[in-house]
């Protein structure tokens, strides 16, 4: 039996968080901070301890692309947020298309599908608080379309010859009017209280006005009305508020023995730009016995500059000269999130909403569990 000892050192605690990465294998992939895993240590849930250990660092924050690190949280929690971002946050998208005329070469069902995938924007308060879900009624039952659950759009375009085009013009977009049908051709028809929420800047409109919907030639026309409803990504990907929402674990690179001179340059080339830096060995380091730098003053040595940019390609592990000199790993509790919104929400608001949604889920189920136990 191991001798009893005072708690783990900071170094040991840090090492526990590292997933080892070897040429062909990975080690220590699962979290071990559960009560009873380490004898004599307390790993039970404690909100204050979580609060002190939990950190968020922003890398960039644009409406269409946010990146930040969640540090000190388990994969199951980070993954819950990621899954909610993709599948559980509601957005407004075209759900029904009523086609009165479509003589373009795009088939009705393909056209309807294309329309459904166009991301729309509008007043945030109106989208989040005013609009509600719509439940499709059973056949024969009165329709339940209201201003708070349906947004009406229309698309009416006809392709005609452009009389002003020059004789030898070959570009169809100049030769004809409406040769290309774009998302900006879609018109919004506010009903009832929608006028209050979605007017001016806040009107319902495509996020990208230049999305190509169809191509036409003179004599062809598209005439249709559309109903938008709120939905979630688990029902159809068109409702997903994100283009991508993903995370990766923070890479770690530990140089255990000096890598010098030509080797250092080769080592740096094993990684993406900016991960490994080259520095001169200082006099102080060279004078230090047992450092491995003796007699190498002024030579270049490899240093880890920015491990976050590493893609963990493991290239450095394939070369004999680095054998035993470097250790690769990933931090198991450091998630580098990347959220790219489709434009209906801001990317950072999306993450906040995913946290709200998880809390909501738990609150509803807590009530249900209490109800069940009764």
């Amino acid at each position, binding site marked *: 039996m191991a001798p009893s000892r005072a708690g783990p050192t900071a170094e040991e605690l840090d090492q526990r968080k590292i997933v080892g990465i070897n040429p062909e294998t990975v080690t220590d992939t699962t979290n071990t*901070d*559960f*009560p009873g895993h380490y004898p004599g240590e*307390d*790993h*039970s*849930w404690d*909100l204050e301890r*979580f*609060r002190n250990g*939990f*950190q*968020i660092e*922003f890398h960039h*924050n644009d409406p269409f692309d946010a990146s*930040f690190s969640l540090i000190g949280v388990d994969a*199951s929690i980070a*993954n*819950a947020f990621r*899954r*909610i971002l993709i*599948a*559980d946050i509601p957005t407004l998208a075209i759900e029904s298309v*009523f086609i009165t*005329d479509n*003589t373009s070469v795009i088939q009705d069902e393909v056209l309807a599908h294309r329309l459904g995938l166009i991301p729309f924007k509008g007043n945030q308060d109106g989208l989040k608080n005013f609009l509600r879900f719509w*439940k499709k009624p059973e056949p024969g039952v009165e329709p*339940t*379309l*209201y*201003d*708070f659950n349906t947004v009406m759009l*229309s698309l*009416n375009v*006809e392709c005609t010859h452009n009389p002003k085009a020059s004789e030898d013009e070959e570009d169809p977009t100049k030769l004809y009017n409406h040769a290309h049908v774009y998302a900006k051709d879609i018109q919004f*028809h506010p*009903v*009832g*209280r929608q*006028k*209050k929420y979605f007017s001016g800047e806040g009107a319902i409109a495509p996020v990208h006005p230049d999305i190509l919907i169809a191509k036409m030639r003179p004599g062809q*026309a598209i*005439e249709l*009305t559309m109903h938008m409803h709120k939905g979630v990504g688990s029902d159809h990907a068109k409702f997903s508020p994100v283009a991508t929402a993903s995370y990766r674990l923070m890479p770690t690179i530990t140089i255990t023995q000096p890598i010098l001179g030509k080797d250092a340059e080769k080592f740096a080339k094993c990684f993406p730009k900016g991960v490994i830096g080259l520095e001169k060995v200082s006099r102080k380091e060279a004078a230090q016995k047992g450092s491995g730098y003796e007699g190498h003053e002024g030579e270049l040595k490899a240093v880890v500059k920015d491990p976050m940019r590493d893609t963990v390609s493991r290239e450095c592990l394939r070369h004999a000269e680095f054998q035993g000199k470097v250790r690769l790993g990933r931090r198991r509790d450091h998630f580098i999130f990347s959220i790219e919104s489709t434009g209906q929400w801001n990317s*950072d608001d999306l*993450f*906040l909403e995913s*946290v*709200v949604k*998880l*809390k909501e*889920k*738990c*609150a509803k*189920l*807590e009530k*249900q*569990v209490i109800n*069940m*136990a009764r």
Partner: protein
Amino acid sequence: MAPRSTRKKAVEEAPMEEEPTSHQPTAEDEDASMADADVDQEDGEEANPEDEEEEEDEEVQRVRILPGSTPTAASFEFLEEGHTLGNALRYIVMQNPDVEFCAYAIPHPSEAKMNVRIQTYEGTTAIQALEKGLRDLQELCDVVTDKFTVARDEFSNRMAA
């Protein structure tokens, strides 16, 4: 090709049951929706389904104890839940020192069901452990929201400076 002289009016001509109808305006937004009052009334739709919908959501019981459970060892079945909640809940319940065992499973991918198994030591029950887990998760969410908001505001201030 058919004549297209009628196209312009198509929107107005769409059958009325296809049109979204406004519900009855309340006193406070009367001003804003006055202009539509005549349109709205045409449909004769008076019902206000807002409240009904909300209640309906709450009524369905989505959690039950599976047969064969004892107070300290129980399996729970969650309807309409998946890995999102399952794994997060499993983690937080496992952090409870009174819990001997916790695991979740989705027995079949085409059934929207998620099972959670909890076994506790003497002194507490599986139901209590489950309730504590759900409460702890909510507290965790609050901390994440707080820290995220602070970090974001600090970042945007730093960027603006």
